[in-house]
């Protein structure tokens, strides 16, 4: 009897710990949701990996620069020792090249041959002689870049098996190049010129130095304008301003300002800084001012959030011992909010570093072959340099564009990493 009752009981009444269909549906819904989340993350990561991977693969050839080493004889009298800059180094270099290839004699062939060597050779030679005028009248080695076609040939970017009409290198040039390789004159050291040269029309000579200096000046201006102004504005709005319609309006507008497309700030900069105030075109100072317009709302919003996060009890404590409002803010609230403010500022500056559109409008996409001496000189910036290079037809600029993107991304990642580190390091729990 007890058997039957227990069996029938089992069939009818479920024990409390046995799951029913509804519960397992709930659990499977949980699992599904988690799977969607993981899938989304995998998708995002693979996109990122594809992006970075493609850029890195394209940039790889720009890591090295093909150089050629020639013995150059600087004849006595070709260069005036009292003014070594004035020598005709182009001709001296040409003579040295011709000594290696004595069979080249028609002007057409000479032109072809000359195209294999970078135009920068004469400057490498000149710099060497200027540094050490005792070289005049002697023969010595000069190392300088091959021209773009030679560089691409060395890196295999130009396929020598294609029919001559389909490649930018003639059979003759390939022959000369092979001879240089045989003679051990070709080397491919790390491409420091890519960082330390200014821009050039020739890809083998083009570098980011001008853009780096320009971006540095622009960010410096941006920081020194937007940081104090942003903090002052945020402190006033958060700690001192009365709550009324006007401050509400200001708050809404600051939030709107953060969403204004950057090209609009560029137009504003063009109209106000260049046309009205007559500031120099293409100069980092104007770029910095325009970027600071964009960074300001970011800094104000971050600062206000950081100030809000400081518990009111700290303000009460300070006011309670007789601190004035300014002392309360200056001695307690602001220092406690500073990590948050710095984090927001760095993120704002990182945004500014990558911003292109406003800089295009104020002319920071000009072709400038020297790094700016000051923030008033024309210059490019990192993102505009990428823009210029991406627009250039030479093969060498393809890899250099990607390399420049990696440099820019590197800076952005570093800045964001600093921001994250600061947030973790100085995070305070109340």
């Amino acid at each position, binding site marked *: 009897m007890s058997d039957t009752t227990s069996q029938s009981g089992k069939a009818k009444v479920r024990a409390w710990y046995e799951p029913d269909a509804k519960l397992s549906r709930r659990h499977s819904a949980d699992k599904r949701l988690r799977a969607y989340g993981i899938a989304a993350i995998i998708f995002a990561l693979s996109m990122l990996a594809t992006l970075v991977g493609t850029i890195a693969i394209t940039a790889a050839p720009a890591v090295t620069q093909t150089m050629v080493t020639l013995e150059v004889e600087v004849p006595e009298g070709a260069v005036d020792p009292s003014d070594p800059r004035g020598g005709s180094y182009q001709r001296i270099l040409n003579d040295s090249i011709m000594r290696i290839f004595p069979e080249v004699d028609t002007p057409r062939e000479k032109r072809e041959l000359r195209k294999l060597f970078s135009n920068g050779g004469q400057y490498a030679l000149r710099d060497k002689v200027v540094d050490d005028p005792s070289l005049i009248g002697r023969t010595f080695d000069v190392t300088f870049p091959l021209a773009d076609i030679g560089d691409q040939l060395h890196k295999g970017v130009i396929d020598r098996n294609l029919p001559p009409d389909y490649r930018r290198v003639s059979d003759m040039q390939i022959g000369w190049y092979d001879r240089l390789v045989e003679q051990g004159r070709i080397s491919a050291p790390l491409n420091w010129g890519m960082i330390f040269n200014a821009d050039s029309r020739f890809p083998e000579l083009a570098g980011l130095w001008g853009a780096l200096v320009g971006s540095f000046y622009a960010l410096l201006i941006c920081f020194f304008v937007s940081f104090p102004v942003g903090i002052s504005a945020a402190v006033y709005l958060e700690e001192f301003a*009365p709550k009324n319609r006007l401050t509400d309006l200001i708050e809404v507008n600051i939030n709107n300002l953060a969403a204004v497309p950057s090209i609009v700030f560029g137009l504003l900069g063009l109209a106000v800084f260049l046309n009205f105030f007559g500031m120099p075109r293409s100069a980092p100072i104007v770029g910095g001012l325009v970027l600071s317009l964009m960074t300001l709302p970011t800094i104000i919003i971050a600062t206000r959030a950081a100030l809000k996060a400081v518990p009111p009890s*700290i303000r009460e*404590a300070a006011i*309670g*011992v*007789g*601190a004035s409002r300014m002392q309360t803010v200056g001695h307690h609230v602001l220092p406690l909010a500073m990590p948050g403010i710095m984090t927001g500022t760095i993120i704002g500056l990182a945004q500014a570093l990558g911003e292109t559109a406003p800089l295009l409008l104020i002319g920071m996409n000009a072709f400038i072959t020297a790094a700016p001496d000051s923030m008033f000189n024309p210059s490019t910036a990192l993102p505009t340099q990428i823009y210029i290079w991406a627009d250039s037809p030479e093969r060498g600029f393809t890899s250099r564009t990607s390399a420049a993107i990696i440099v820019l991304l590197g800076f952005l990642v570093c800045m964001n990493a600093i921001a994250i580190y600061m947030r973790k390091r100085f995070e305070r729990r109340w």
Partner: protein
Amino acid sequence: MNKTAEEAGTLAKAAASVQAGHESKIAATNVSVFYGEKQALFDVSIDIPARQVMAFIGPSGCGKSTFLRCINRMNDTIDICRVTGTIEIDGADIYDPKIDPVLLRARVGMVFQKPNPFPKSIYDNIAYGPRIHGVAKNGSAMDEIVETSLSRAGLWKEVKDRLNEPGTGLSGGQQQRLCIARAIAVNPDVILMDEPCSALDPIATAKVEELIDELRQHYTIVIVTHSMQQAARVSQKAAFFHLGNLIEVDETEKVFTNPTDKRTQDYITGRFG
């Protein structure tokens, strides 16, 4: 043994202490407080005697904290708050435009509900007030102030070897005594305490109560508390607030044993609140 006799004895003592010259330190007349349109406090008039502990009791939202915060103009920090009436400390109206709230708050210290030490060292917590008021520069004079203040707050022995450690690292009760020491450091006459023990455990509470009892030799203390036992233990006078009105103020003994008002009676017997 005999309860009434005991009560009579303490009452007599309290009366004697009043006669012994507990002059009025704070005199409030017709104080009303408005938050925007809403009136939170209605015509409160009260005399708070010097060097005694006055407890404000009453149900939540009755205005006792609001009134407490009027005494050092802490309400100034709230934009929509408006105070009418007069509060005189030693005969000077603290809402007179000539009075600087910064100076007022140096004379009227405050201890808050939740211990709120600055996230600085124990030393700097105490030294901050004297420093901004220019009482002492860093050095031996400041060291002395720190030691006296911490000693008076009964904390010196516990923290003297770790003055450079952060004040936030202390236990809750120690933090609250640190806050009391911080208030003492600027040498006030009056110390306002807004439910100082509500975030503390019973042992820490007992220590703070003991401290309050010692402090009343030097300071006039006004304490807001939700605990009627605490009011009975630490205060000599008690004021009962209800719905923004001051209902009754008298010797603590009398308020708790023989209140005049029905509402006081109901509150202390636990019928509401």
